[in-house]
């Protein structure tokens, strides 16, 4: 079936492909020379053509009459063929014969013959200001249009304001236009440049210099498989202001989106260079499946998922953010349903820069800056720690460890945080060239970015190259490509690791006693000491000698061809590839105890992931009469991926200095591993955009997806959507309203899916390696590991959205507000099944999650004169509720370790949001033995121990006394940008924040453990003693009760951050000419300058478990965020 369908489509296309050959001979060009209009119409010519296209006939008439036709190509159907036979007839008569049957009117102005459809809106307007050709005096204006570099600009539209009279500049930038003598203003416009209204004086020759316009792209919004005018959007789409986004120095483009769009929550999981983010567009739909949006970069879909830790490598960082031309974030189902089974989490569409005809530019951009740790954790110094140790021993009835003199001698001791942190440079260099002529456009760029991390021995480097080409082969066929080749090298610090694990730089720096020296007398790193009675590695040795490097090489690009079959009908074929080669090298040195015990451990992992995609799209644009405009899209796409990986490791090295470079040097080889994963997706898609009178807009789309990931029984699914919008301001009653310049109401509904985050073969029955040992040798064992689920299918999200776009005071204020409700059903849940089956869990489609929320965007141009002040505000609120868990009322979730007694940190409970923390409620400390006896808590021994609420009133403190104690999901997220500019100076203040979320600060387990094994937070100076009882810090004792996840570790994670403060100056006027440059911009920037938060950890932006929805908002040994100070320059030649 499928094959037959494909074949018939191909045959149809092949037939169509004959057309361009036939049409090749059609060339439209003519030369204007001044003739009085009446003369033109009265001129007698002879013409004889048989079944020729109208275009060709008009061209012939131009030649014979000396006049020039002006018309929009859409008004004449290419396929329409006409026969005409005239001998020495007036041009007017010939035109009447030719055009009237086609419903086309004509007007003549000087030597221009302007064609319009009879019932065209423009035509009606034109008729309203009809000019009779006899009595109007006319004049000819000539001139040249160029850009600041002096290069001429072709194809610039030049019109007399308020009329249809106009022309375009030729390839030397010259134009000549005959206008009515009373014409006062000429309008020069060109895509990508600021439109110029030029006041016409008496001069005949004028010179225009056009300025590039970053905002003009905002008028066109890139949506799935196409573009629409912002005005015509029916769905909820945020287009990101690149101008603002680019003011922030970031490693990866996802970071730059933070705070820029309503409804889009972005969390930097870790402060490490090249680390991942977690993105939730309108909340998380899925519990176990993937919640990250789909990225579509130059048409190639890509999922940036699988970051299981904050320190994971961010694959998106392999793309250079400076190459981006536009970003749209599709949020509602009407916009995302065209991406079907991968659209449920929203879609981020990114296009990279392409060349423009005539606009040649060479741009150099660079910045350099310094990063500093935002704040240090206050921990005990040497003296304080020594006294604390004494206290621990005395409390347990043992003698003090140190005399007062010894305590004093420790002084401040070692500040381990100072030893691992540094001020680190960040720099970026980028050279780009773009330009072209009418037929060929190019955009090339090369970049180098380097960010040293504030933790020693961590850094990120990116080398990037891009080449985007476009070539018009003829009027019908256009080909082009996008290609980027990037290499990144990331030295990752060991942070954000498993709880209680030994090899973590940041947490070890907090834990290491200040009384332990960094090195022994012989210069070697301290590994053992009487004061080291816990499992953590010397943080300095670990930071400096440990190696953990990711090298990624990515080839990303496509080739495409666009063919105009007939006017309005286009066929586009794209073939793309995304190849990611990654190598992860790691070495744990013998200078730390975890490395020493293994004699040094080296691991090398390689993975190569190659995806290819093919898209075949037909689009049809048609305006029927003046009222009906329709755009049809039909497409067939297919994508497949193959990922192969291997890991090799060995240990017991004679020396550390070669690190992981020669595994053969390790005396003990460790069993290698490898694997292959593949998936494929085949999709049919269609969309209709219809508008009536440019007032009522309707969009309907459908996509059918087949995925290799799902069970044979449920492989295909259908994702429909619909939207209606009403441009109220086009109605007569609002048309001339001075206050409301724009008002549009939108209503959308649709279904989208999610198929990611569950591995490649979730539906299969799998066998796995289950080895045993025979005769001291490993013997291969193979047995069942996964049970088949042939009924496994998509998670489906139904979303309804209602929105309003409001423009006030001639566009000075633009407001967009949306409210939505999303219900995700058939969740991909890895459910506990009866163990008697032999399988602890199985992936099934069960359960429901709801997200509902509101979003508000306000753009206000407060001051519009020489001093300009613009404010952009976005704020949104999302409420997430788990509606159903397939019958269960709750699922314990959230990563844990021994540190929390193996109890989960979170719970997924029906009626509650995802990301709920679950634990005990502490209410201070036991103050007396009576209090302890009143409540049976196996963990409480003496006054000064932490006290917990007996929630179920059974006088016993146990696991049943837990409840939801916090939520990782913020109530509000938002950002506000204020920009001020005056004569080339520009000041930008960007604030971003979240409110109402909690963080589980697991560092407190280590820093408030009070048993004298590791360093403690400064708070423990206020610990409970018999004389200091009014405190919530327990007593010091070597036999601490077990850790319990409780309200003690839950902290308010709200913050407001001055994300960016930038002062820039752009050189003005004559200086540019003198320097022979188009544009020079210099700036200084401070990022993360101030953060207002109550959170006591390094930074409130933390997510130890990366994108895992079940363990959100967890901080354990995170990599701190940095304050950054930058200076930069952009020069365009």
């Amino acid at each position, binding site marked *: 079936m499928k094959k037959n369908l494909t074949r018939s489509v191909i045959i149809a*296309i092949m037939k169509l492909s004959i057309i361009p050959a036939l049409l090749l001979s059609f060339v439209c060009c003519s030369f204007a020379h001044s003739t009085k209009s009446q003369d033109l119409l009265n001129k007698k010519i002879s013409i004889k053509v048989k079944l020729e296209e109208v275009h060709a006939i008009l061209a012939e008439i131009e030649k014979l009459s000396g006049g020039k036709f002006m018309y929009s190509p859409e008004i004449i159907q290419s396929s329409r063929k006409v026969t005409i036979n005239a001998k020495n007839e007036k041009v007017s008569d010939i035109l009447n014969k030719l055009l009237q049957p086609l419903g086309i009117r004509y007007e003549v102005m000087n030597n221009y013959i302007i064609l319009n459809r009879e019932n065209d809106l423009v035509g009606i307007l034109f008729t309203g200001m009809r000019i009779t050709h006899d009595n109007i005096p006319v004049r000819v204006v000539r001139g040249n249009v160029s850009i600041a570099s002096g290069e001429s600009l072709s194809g610039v539209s030049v019109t007399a304001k308020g009329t249809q009279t106009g022309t375009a500049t030729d390839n030397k930038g010259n134009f000549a236009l005959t206008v009515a003598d009373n014409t006062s203003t000429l309008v020069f416009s060109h895509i990508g440049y600021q439109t110029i209204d030029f006041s016409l004086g008496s001069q005949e020759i004028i010179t225009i210099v056009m300025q590039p316009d970053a905002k003009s792209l905002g008028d066109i919004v890139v949506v799935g498989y196409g573009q629409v005018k912002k005005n015509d959007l029916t769905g909820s789409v945020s287009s990101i202001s690149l101008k603002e986004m680019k003011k922030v120095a970031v490693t990866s483009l996802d970071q730059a989106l933070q705070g820029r769009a309503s409804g889009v929550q972005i969390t930097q999981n870790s402060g490490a260079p090249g680390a991942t983010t977690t993105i939730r567009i309108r909340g998380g739909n899925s519990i176990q499946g993937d919640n990250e949006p789909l990225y579509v970069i130059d048409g190639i879909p890509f999922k940036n998922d699988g970051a299981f830790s904050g320190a994971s490598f961010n694959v998106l960082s392999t793309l250079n953010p400076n190459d981006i031309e536009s970003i749209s974030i599709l949020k509602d189902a009407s916009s995302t349903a065209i991406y079907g089974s991968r659209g449920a989490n929203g879609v981020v569409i990114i296009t990279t820069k392409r060349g423009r005809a005539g606009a040649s530019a060479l741009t150099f951009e660079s910045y350099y800056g310094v990063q500093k740790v935002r704040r240090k954790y206050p921990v005990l110094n040497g003296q304080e720690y020594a006294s604390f140790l004494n206290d621990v021993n005395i409390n347990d009835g043992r003698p003090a460890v140190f005399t007062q003199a010894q305590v004093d001698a420790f002084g401040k001791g070692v500040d381990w945080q100072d030893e691992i942190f540094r001020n680190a440079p960040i720099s970026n260099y980028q050279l780009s060239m773009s330009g072209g002529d009418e037929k060929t456009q190019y955009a090339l760029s090369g970049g180098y970015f380097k960010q040293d991390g504030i933790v020693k021995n961590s850094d990120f480097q990116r080398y990037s190259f891009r080449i985007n080409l476009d070539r018009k082969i003829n009027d019908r066929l256009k080909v082009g490509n996008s290609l980027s080749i990037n290499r990144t090298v990331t030295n990752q610090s060991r942070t954000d690791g498993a709880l209680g694990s030994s090899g973590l730089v940041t947490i070890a720096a907090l834990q290491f006693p200040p009384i332990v020296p960094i090195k022994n007398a012989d210069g070697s790193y301290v590994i053992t000491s009487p004061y080291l009675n816990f499992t953590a590695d010397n943080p300095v040795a670990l930071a400096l000698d440990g190696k953990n490097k990711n090298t990624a090489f990515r080839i990303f690009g496509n080739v495409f061809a666009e063919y105009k079959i007939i006017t309005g009908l286009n066929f586009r074929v794209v*073939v793309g590839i995304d190849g990611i080669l990654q190598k992860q090298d790691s070495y744990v040195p013998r200078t730390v105890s975890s490395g020493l015990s293994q004699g040094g451990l080296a691991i090398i992992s390689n993975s190569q992931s190659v995806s290819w995609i093919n898209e075949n799209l037909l689009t049809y644009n048609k305006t029927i009469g003046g009222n009906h405009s329709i755009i049809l899209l039909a497409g067939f796409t*297919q994508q497949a991926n193959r990922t192969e990986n291997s890991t090799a490791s060995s240990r017991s090295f004679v020396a550390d200095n070669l690190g992981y470079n020669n595994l053969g040097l390790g005396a003990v080889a460790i069993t290698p591993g490898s694997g292959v994963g593949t998936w494929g997706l085949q999709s049919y898609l269609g969309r209709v955009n219809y508008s009536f009178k440019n007032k009522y807009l309707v969009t309907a789309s459908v996509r059918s997806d087949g995925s290799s990931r799902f069970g044979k029984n449920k492989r295909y699914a259908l994702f429909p959507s619909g939207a209606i919008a009403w441009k109220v301001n086009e109605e007569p009653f609002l048309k001339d309203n001075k206050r409301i310049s724009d008002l549009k109401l939108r209503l959308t509904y649709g279904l989208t899916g999610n198929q990611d985050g569950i591995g490649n073969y979730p539906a299969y029955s799998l066998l796995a390696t289950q080895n045993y*040992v025979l005769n001291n040798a490993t013997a291969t*064992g193979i047995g069942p590991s996964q049970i*088949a689920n042939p009924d496994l299918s998509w998670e489906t999200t139904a979303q309804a959205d209602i929105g309003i776009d409001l423009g006030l005071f001639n566009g000075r204020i633009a407001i967009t507000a949306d409210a939505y409700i999303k219900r995700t059903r058939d969740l991909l849940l890895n459910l506990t099944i*009866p163990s008697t089956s032999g399988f602890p869990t199985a992936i099934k489609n069960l359960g429901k999650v709801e997200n509902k929320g509101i979003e508000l965007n306000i753009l206000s141009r407060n001051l519009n004169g020489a001093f300009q002040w613009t404010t952009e505000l976005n704020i949104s609120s999302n409420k997430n509720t788990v509606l159903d868990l397939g019958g269960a009322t709750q699922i314990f979730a959230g990563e844990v370790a021994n540190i929390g007694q193996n109890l989960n940190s979170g719970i997924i409970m029906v009626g509650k949001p995802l990301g709920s923390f679950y634990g005990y409620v502490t209410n201070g400390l036991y103050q007396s033995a009576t209090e302890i006896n009143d409540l049976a808590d196996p963990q409480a021994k003496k006054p000064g121990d932490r006290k917990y609420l007996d929630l179920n009133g059974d006088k016993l403190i146990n696991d049943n006394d837990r409840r939801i104690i916090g939520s990782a999901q913020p109530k509000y997220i938002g950002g506000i940008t204020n920009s001020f500019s005056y004569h080339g100076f520009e000041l930008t203040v960007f604030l971003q924040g979240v409110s109402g979320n909690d963080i589980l600060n697991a560092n407190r387990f280590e820093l408030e453990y009070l048993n004298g094994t590791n360093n403690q937070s400064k708070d423990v100076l206020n610990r409970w003693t018999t004389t200091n009882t009014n405190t919530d810090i327990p007593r010091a004792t070597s036999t601490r009760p077990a850790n319990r996840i409780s309200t003690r570790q839950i902290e308010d994670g709200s913050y407001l951050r001055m994300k960016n403060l930038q002062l820039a100056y752009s050189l003005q006027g004559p200086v540019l000419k003198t320097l022979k440059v188009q544009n020079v911009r210099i700036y200084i920037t401070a990022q993360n300058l101030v953060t207002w938060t109550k959170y006591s950890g390094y930074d409130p932006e933390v997510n130890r478990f990366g994108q895992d929805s079940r363990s959100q908002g967890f901080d354990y040994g995170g990599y701190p965020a940095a304050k950054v100070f930058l200076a930069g320059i952009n020069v365009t030649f």
Partner: protein
Amino acid sequence: MKQQYFIHFLLAALVLASCSKILEKSPESNFTPDNFYRNAEDAKAAVNAVYDLMNTSDIYNQVMWIIQDQSTDDAEWGNGRSTANQPKNDLDKYTFTPATVTFQTLWSACYRAINRCNTALERIPPINMDEPLKARLLGEAKFMRAFYYFTLVRLFGDVPLVLKETTSLNNLQVARAPAEDVYKQIIQDFTDAENILPVSYSAAEKGKATKGAAKAFLSKVYLTREEWAKASTKAKEVMDLGAGYDLWANFADAFLLANKNGKESVFEIQANGLIGEGSWMQGYMRPPFDRVNNIAGFGDDPPTQSIYNAFQATDTRRNATLRMYSATGTPAAPATIVFPCYVSKYLDPGATGNNDGSNNFPVIRYADVLLMYAEALNEQGAGNTEAYNALNKIRRRAGLADFSGLTQTAFRDSVLQERRLELAFEGHRRFDLLRTKRLVSAMTTQNPGIAVKPYQILFPVPQIERDVNPLLTQNNGY
């Protein structure tokens, strides 16, 4: 014409692309049941997988010690040490609940292993291969199925009896079968294994279940069921099998790495020093302040004063089993630890990590068989010479005087005491206390502060299992 070629090229690309079956992606780095179970090698691998789970932390590499020692008078938790591990503390203090994770871990691992056994038992018969080898492999799978069910039935009582491979997500809820039915199946499987398994294996397959192991387990099953005659018969069959079973001259020799799978070994869990297949005991039982090859141990299973004092000073087994540290010794124990005693039975000086020891875990040593024989004979009548011979053989090796002239009760007590000392920290204590119904009294003697309630003799059915399977009833009391 160039553009036409281009179009054709693109169309050709499109045709090629659509021809590939991109929705048919089958696993390439995992076997599936469809492309496995084809020949003798596959059958062997399927049976190796059946043994595998014993050597994981879910069973004998951790959970079994916690259950056998922590919940008895042999090991304690706390007493000056960190009590951070709640499940261990709960087992020690008898504050466990159906939600205590240890139960779920063990229950789930046993059934995972049982499904592997059932899979082997169903998938191997159709394979065209050497029939005697096939029969032997099926015998091994039955042995191991009986082994896992025997573990479950003793700790939980009635348990679901699943004897078919699970291939679908339908009908997964199974009710508990009476313990009697489970025992019937266990005896059936061990008997089938006993009939088919060889007395010994070639060097390459050393470590697999033998005829002697099946007989020893049958003896243990009958002992548990107080079928004394059958128990003594089976024990005697092991002794007379001609497999060369005997005791090492010194108790400590039984635990030397050089003597793995030696003459005293009847069935032991195999480990080599590789990560993933290594033993955890040497690292986990050593205290944190005693580093070997720079690795701190975890100090699991800290022995009680009760077991330390149970050894006579002249008993050579004491120092081979336990090590007393002190605050002034080397290495020095933290003074906070009230009784700084740790298990020293399992040492591997070559281990380079806590989870890569090469010690095997002795599930049944020949000493166990002798003690089972003595016990079963004594229950059939006091004053049995063979019973004394067996018991005294154990005592003599330990450097203790022979017993003689004991009453039946005194003999019974002596055997149990000998089992406690001889087999300490080998995964027997709770089972022995359960079948002799002495768990409550033993705990009270060790620490009167711990009140074991009568219903706690059986562990609770894990709460998670009951949540997903309403057919599962709970043991009384929980």
